[in-house]
């Protein structure tokens, strides 16, 4: 049996699994494969690429060597009515180029138009469009198979000419709009929202809206009102990043909303009750105070919130003013609230991005204990500059409580006296679904008997700033615990200046080489 005897749909499926270079290689083998692979090659090109396809200088092809690209040229010639050599000389070169542009544009299924250096790259497409006779308004007509359109800009004015094009003639299933204002334009921020509102209104649909500002100025109500009225049935994702966003504005009707991203630093802008019945994922960025996210979680009326990501700018936002965690610990209160209101949560992420907090805080395990009540968690991520005295006992407790974990990412400055070791890894090896693991571990020379062979499916393990005493026996034990391990990584920075940098790196490289490659050195 030959490959080309298969139906075209299956051949297209095979090509979709090929890399771009291999897809091109197979396109160059025969006309049959060319027709199949070229659709894959031009499914999602860069706008500049598309412009280049129409405007690449190619006089040689046109004047003397026309036989080369027969298939495309024949289409171009037929389209402009060339029948003889005289006709050919009569037709200007730019028409051929425009026809080539049109040919490739008709294959595009996903296109991103973005602002680069105060110019939308969409302007690159204008010359061939002008030749095709419709000017800029001809762009949607040329993109006959466009399914996904993404518009990105730093200034809403750039979106205006694009959004007013007749996109409704394209078979679009998704439109994403991203407005990320830069600091240079921040003085005109108050004008931007009204322009954005104006720019969005002509679009036929809107699925993903992301607006990033320095400071919201109270005009978000008009924006959300428009979004609710025009795109309520399609809008799935809203990201409103920047200080001062009034959460009351989300009370408008958004029946398809599944994901919200907000910057919240105060509870004064949060309503008492916020009904978002279809919400699945919530991302909240806080800078200096956790009161805003606490108030939001209290106010949210969501039947099934599955994913929560909290990003913290300053670790002090999670510290109590009195320093008595037992009474007013913001982090414990926040996690308790999550565990109480959303026990069905499957993904929880807490990331503190302050690199060098002063003084370096330390979080006792009891601050994180409410996480143990989230038994359905499949993804857990905690990244903090605070030291977490998590040892074998705490990790074992976590494994017992969250036995469905698939991805576990714990990152903190390791304390050698109280770090997870073999017992913790043995407990983690019992999690059958675990696929990715990041945890700083200190692996001593003594390997306890409990490190028995397991059927763990773990494939990726990052040791962070951990260390190993005896690489060879440790590698053997790691292979026994995680037989499917493919990738072992570590942070080359030593956990403290006291540790000898070079010898640690050598030990860990040995461990990686032996454990990753599956070599057993006797």
């Amino acid at each position: 049996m030959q490959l080309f005897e298969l139906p075209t749909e299956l051949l297209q499926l095979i090509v979709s699994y090929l890399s771009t270079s291999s897809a091109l290689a197979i396109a160059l083998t025969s006309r049959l494969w060319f027709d199949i692979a070229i659709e894959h090659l031009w499914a999602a090109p860069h706008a500049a690429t598309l412009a280049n396809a129409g405007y690449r200088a190619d006089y040689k092809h046109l004047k003397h060597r026309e036989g080369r690209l027969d298939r495309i040229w024949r289409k171009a010639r037929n389209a402009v009515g060339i029948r003889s050599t005289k006709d050919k000389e009569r037709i200007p070169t730019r028409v051929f180029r425009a026809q080539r542009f049109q040919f490739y544009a008709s294959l595009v299924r996903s296109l991103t138009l973005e602002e680069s250096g105060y110019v939308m790259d969409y302007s690159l497409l204008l010359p061939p469009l002008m030749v095709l006779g419709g000017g800029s308004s001809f762009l949607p007509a040329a993109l006959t198979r466009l399914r996904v359109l993404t518009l990105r800009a730093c200034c809403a004015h750039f979106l205006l000419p694009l959004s007013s094009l007749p996109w409704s003639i394209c078979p679009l299933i998704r439109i994403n709009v991203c407005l990320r204002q830069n600091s240079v334009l921040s003085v005109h921020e108050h004008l931007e929202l009204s322009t954005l509102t104006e720019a969005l209104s002509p679009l036929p649909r809107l699925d993903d809206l992301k607006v990033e500002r320095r400071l919201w100025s109270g005009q978000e109500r008009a924006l959300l009102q428009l979004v609710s009225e025009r795109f309520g049935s399609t809008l799935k994702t809203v990201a409103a990043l920047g200080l001062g966003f009034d959460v009351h504005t989300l009370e408008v009707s958004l029946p398809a909303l599944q994901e919200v991203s907000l910057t919240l630093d105060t509870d004064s802008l949060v309503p008492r009750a916020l009904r978002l019945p279809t919400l699945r994922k919530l991302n909240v960025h806080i800078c200096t105070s956790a009161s805003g996210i606490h108030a939001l979680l209290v106010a949210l009326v969501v039947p099934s919130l599955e994913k929560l990501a909290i990003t913290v700018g300053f670790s002090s936002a999670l510290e109590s003013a009195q320093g008595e965690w037992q009474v007013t610990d913001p982090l414990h209160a926040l996690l308790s609230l999550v565990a109480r209101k959303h026990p069905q949560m499957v993904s929880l992420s807490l990331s503190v991005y302050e690199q060098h907090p002063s003084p370096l805080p330390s979080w006792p395990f009891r601050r994180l204990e409410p996480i143990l009540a989230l038994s359905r968690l499949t993804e857990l991520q905690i990244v903090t500059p605070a030291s977490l005295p998590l040892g074998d006992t705490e990790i074992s407790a976590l494994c017992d409580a969250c036995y469905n974990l698939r991805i576990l990412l714990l990152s903190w400055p390791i304390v050698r006296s109280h770090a997870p070791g073999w017992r913790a890894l043995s407990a983690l090896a019992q999690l059958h679904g675990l696929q990715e693991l990041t945890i700083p571990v200190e692996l001593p020379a003594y390997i306890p008997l409990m490190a028995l062979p397991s059927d763990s499916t773990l494939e990726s393990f990052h040791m962070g700033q951990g260390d190993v005493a005896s690489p060879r026996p440790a590698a053997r034990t790691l292979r026994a615990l995680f037989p499917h391990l493919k990738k072992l990584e570590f942070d080359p920075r030593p956990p403290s200046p006291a540790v000898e940098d070079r010898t640690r790196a050598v030990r860990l490289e040995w461990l990686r080489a032996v454990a990753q490659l599956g070599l057993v050195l006797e």
Partner: protein
Amino acid sequence: MSITLISKEGAQFLVSKPVADRIGVVRDCAYGADFWLGYAVATDDSMGITLANVTSSILSKILVWCEHYKDMEPLVDGDSNMEFPEWDMAYIGHDMNQILFVLEAADYLHIPGLLLLACKGIADVLDGRNPRGICDLLGIVMDFSHRQEVDMDKENGYWRWFLHPT
């Protein structure tokens, strides 16, 4: 409950219900009547179901896959970036001829997970080869002249334009 499957050569394979459930055609034949008649027509059917387009060797290979996935869901999402499990890739191997027969049979028997795996297997065999290498492997006679090949490579190799714009 078990079902007998009969290959092109007439060889019989006795399979359990969870294994047979992975094969769309068999599922429809054996249990499709549940919905309309309220009972399964092929329950412990001694006649068996004949799969006239599938040879014994390919059917036995397919049943290994079905046996492996009788208790868990295979990948059926069409996302080309998704990675298949290690067992799947070892199962499908690198023998182009055999993968082609598996692909054809998976299409005929309506097994979407195996169909995607076979497509991925073929793509892995083709990946990294140049046009000549692919022609040699697949036994294709190149339609394009060397000049045409160079020109089309230039025209469609757009990811290189950003590095060396022409």
